[in-house]
């Protein structure tokens, strides 16, 4: 059996070889300069790194290349060796067969048929042979490259320049990861969403008012046709985020004003971190709090005054979400209010304004763009927040504006559609990606606008 442990061993062997290469290179450089490092162009250690890099990188490329190709080779070889009548099966069935072969080979499942068992044995033996040949190949490459680099060392070799050029390439590649992540997000969302829109039209998805994504296993079952109108989801998201913002904006803004304009430095240094604790608590904790304490409390209060409140009311989820995003509003607003130049305040005081008049009529208008930016950032948090709504909001897609009823949100549906057993071809799971695409687009737009406003405002006073 070959597994991650063998791969790890191979890596460790390569690393040891590279370390060995480092020592060889350094010693050879020193020997070439007859023990006097001053005669060398680069420090001896750079010669060492030079050899080590030559030793490690090409071999690593071999291994990575194999890791990329391995699944395709295995799939091709195992499938073509299956009996002819099996190969003529439709594509989905073949994929299932291959899946079983892999499970038998890798996780020791019991094969359902003898054919699968044989295929699994071929899979294992092929994989083992391939692994050992790749291990030998990569080690051979490493040794050859080591010998090559070792021979090239002489006193005038520009080892430092070459090593630093390699490191620079690594640094550049690292900075690419952020770009790659974004590309990965966009591509995976787009790709799966396009497959979704092949079965459900874009118009129905964006403007339909029926959401019942239950697709049955067979197309002739009752209720097998799902409806994918996402309007109730958008409405629910807006309702809950709206409640959250109605809680967070006044509380956060007033806290920020008090802390930046009134509070003594000591009070501020204690209260500000405490408020930020609210943002540091995991959202799953808020979800538990909402479902366990807040929702029953609101339901009981409603019962007292004769209102019927759903036990998963939008109000409970929104309220708790609002508490969570208070610090997002307060911290950023605090910063922008503090950044308003003192001269503006002094001008207002000089005209006889009281402190609150100065704040309301001078400071806030001056800080308004930044405050709007912070509110937009908080709104994007609220829209993308998942755990609170998964645990405290409902699953039924009601199209309502009544905060006492249960509504569902985009994020709740993404989680519900994808948790549990998945088939990757049903519109049900693909719908989650379409929802993800909407979510990504909306939050991205909110962030871009918010950052733009904040940055523009900053330039004004710098």
């Amino acid at each position, binding site marked *: 059996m070959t597994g*991650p442990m063998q791969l790890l061993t191979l890596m460790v062997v390569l690393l040891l070889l590279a370390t060995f290469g480092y020592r060889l290179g350094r010693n050879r450089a020193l020997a070439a300069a007859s023990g006097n490092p001053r005669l060398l162009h680069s420090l001896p250690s750079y010669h060492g790194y030079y050899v080590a890099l030559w030793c490690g990188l090409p071999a690593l490329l071999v291994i990575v290349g194999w890791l990329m190709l391995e*699944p395709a080779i295995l799939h091709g070889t195992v499938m073509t060796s299956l009996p002819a009548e099996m190969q003529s099966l439709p594509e989905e069935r073949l994929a299932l067969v291959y899946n079983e072969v892999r499970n038998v080979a890798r996780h020791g499942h019991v094969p359902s048929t003898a054919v699968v068992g044989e295929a699994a044995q071929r899979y294992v033996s092929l994989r083992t042979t391939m692994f050992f040949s790749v291990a030998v190949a990569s080690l051979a490459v490493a040794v050859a490259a080591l010998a090559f680099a070792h021979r090239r060392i002489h006193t005038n070799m520009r080892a*430092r320049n070459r*090593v630093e050029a390699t490191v*620079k390439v*690594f*640094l550049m590649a*690292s*900075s690419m*990861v*952020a*770009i790659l*992540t974004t590309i990965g*997000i966009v591509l995976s*969302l787009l790709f799966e969403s396009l497959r979704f829109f092949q079965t459900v039209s874009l118009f129905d998805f964006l403007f339909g008012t029926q959401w019942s994504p239950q697709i049955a296993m067979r197309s002739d079952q009752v209720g097998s046709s799902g409806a994918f109108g996402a309007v109730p989801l958008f409405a629910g998201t807006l309702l809950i985020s709206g409640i959250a913002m109605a809680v967070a904006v006044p509380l*956060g803004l*007033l*806290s920020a004003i*008090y*802390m930046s304009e009134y509070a003594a430095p000591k009070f501020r240094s204690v*209260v500000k971190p*405490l*408020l930020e*604790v*609210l943002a*540091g*608590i*995991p*959202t*799953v*904790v*808020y*979800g*538990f*709090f909402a479902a*366990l*304490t807040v929702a029953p409390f609101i339901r009981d209060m409603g019962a007292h005054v004769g209102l019927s409140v759903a036990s998963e009311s939008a109000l409970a989820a929104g309220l708790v979400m609002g508490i969570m995003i*208070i610090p997002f509003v*307060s911290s950023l607003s605090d910063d922008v209010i503090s950044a308003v130049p003192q001269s503006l305040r002094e001008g207002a005081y000089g005209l006889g304004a*009281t*402190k*609150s*008049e100065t704040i309301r009529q001078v400071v806030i208008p001056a800080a308004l763009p930044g405050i709007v930016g912070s509110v937009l950032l908080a709104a*994007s948090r609220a829209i*993308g*927040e*998942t*755990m609170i709504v998964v*645990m405290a909001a409902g699953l039924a897609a009601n199209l309502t504006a009544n905060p006492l009823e249960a509504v569902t949100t985009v994020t709740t549906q*993404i*989680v519900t559609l*994808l948790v549990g057993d998945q088939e990757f071809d049903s519109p049900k799971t693909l719908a*989650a*990606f379409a929802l*993800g695409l909407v*979510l*990504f687009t909306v*939050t*991205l737009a909110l*962030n871009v606008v918010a950052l733009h406003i904040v940055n523009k405002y900053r330039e004004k006073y710098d």
Partner: protein
Amino acid sequence: MVENAIAVTPAQAAASRLKQRYAAETRFKFLGISAIVLSLSFLALLLVTILSNGLTAFVQTSIRVDITLDAETLGIDPVKPSADALSSANYGQVIKNAMYKAFPAVESRPELRQLAAMVSSGADVGLRKMLVANPSLLGTTQSVWLVADDDVDMAMKGHITRKAGAEGSRLTDAQLGWLDELEARGNVAKRFNTALFTVGDSREPEQAGLWGAVVGSFFSLSITLLVCFPLGVATAVYLEEYAPKNRWTDLIEVNINNLAAVPSVVFGLLGLAIFLNFFGFPRSAPLVGGLVLALISLPTIIIAARAAMKAVPPSIREAALGLGASKLQMVTDHVLPLSMPGILTGTILGMAHALGETAPLLMIGMVAFIVDIPASPLDPAAVLPVQVYLWADSPERAFVERTSAAIMVLLFFLATMNLAAIFLRKKFERRW
């Protein structure tokens, strides 16, 4: 209006307006302080709720019974007990017999069943461990503390009213009577809940532990740290020290800032589509969880590392370059060591954030019910916040208590990490 102006002198009007304005001032200030008080009282309420619900989970009700380790009932050869026989013996029956003996008056079959149900269905595990460790106990009678069933536990802790038919109570009148009797004999006690910290998940609340989730979180975060610390620092070094000021660099920067604000559930979708479906990584594994969390915390670490590097004065760079150091030597020998406290602080905060992240892990299948403690990052595992989510979903009253306890453990780790970050910042902060 005109009449008013005649009736009061301008000075009087100004004075009364001033009074109003000062009142408005006081009101405004009061609004500000009450917003802060309200926000903080929410925080206090949250913590008090968790504490009051969860503190009792650290103890577990146990029942003391005299157990006769009868070789015949156990089905073990008394002369030469083999290890195999010892570990597969019928401990459940021995425990039942001991319970029956404690209440000899009980005779009817349903009542006997209720009596046996007062002890946890997993109590035999402890007994087996005891006998396997010390086979000479075979045939003796031992006084043993057995873990009680979760309903008994809840009644003992007062979370459920000790009355048959009370809300959430599944205990019968007879069981409550036996419980009173046991208590009077001093055979019921609340002992430290070791299971909570030593075993994995279970369907039975009294046998459910957090250890599997703690280990899973540890594996995930290790992967996250291994991936995103080198990548984050390398990116920050490139952007701060090497990158030319051009459109491409701007694009990378905008990208990083935007990634920091992408909802975490979208990263879960990415992990599902790329890591699971495209690369075929195992589901529910900390490896995939760690990779997804690494992508989530990468922007945080890059931003923190860049800020720390920016704070290193240019004079230090110039001095290094002036003495003949190359750019890389300047970075590795001067800039990085000087900015390391800041980078580490940012990394710890990023890790703390990753520890509390739940939603993306649900997407990649880390919600499975997993009893075994994971032995490697490739084994299926739960992580702490997901364990909280799973337990919060369970209907038993005893799981409410355990969920709160799990949250306390999670918050404890988060607080420790944040305090470590604050300590690092305070201790090594340098101003030039």
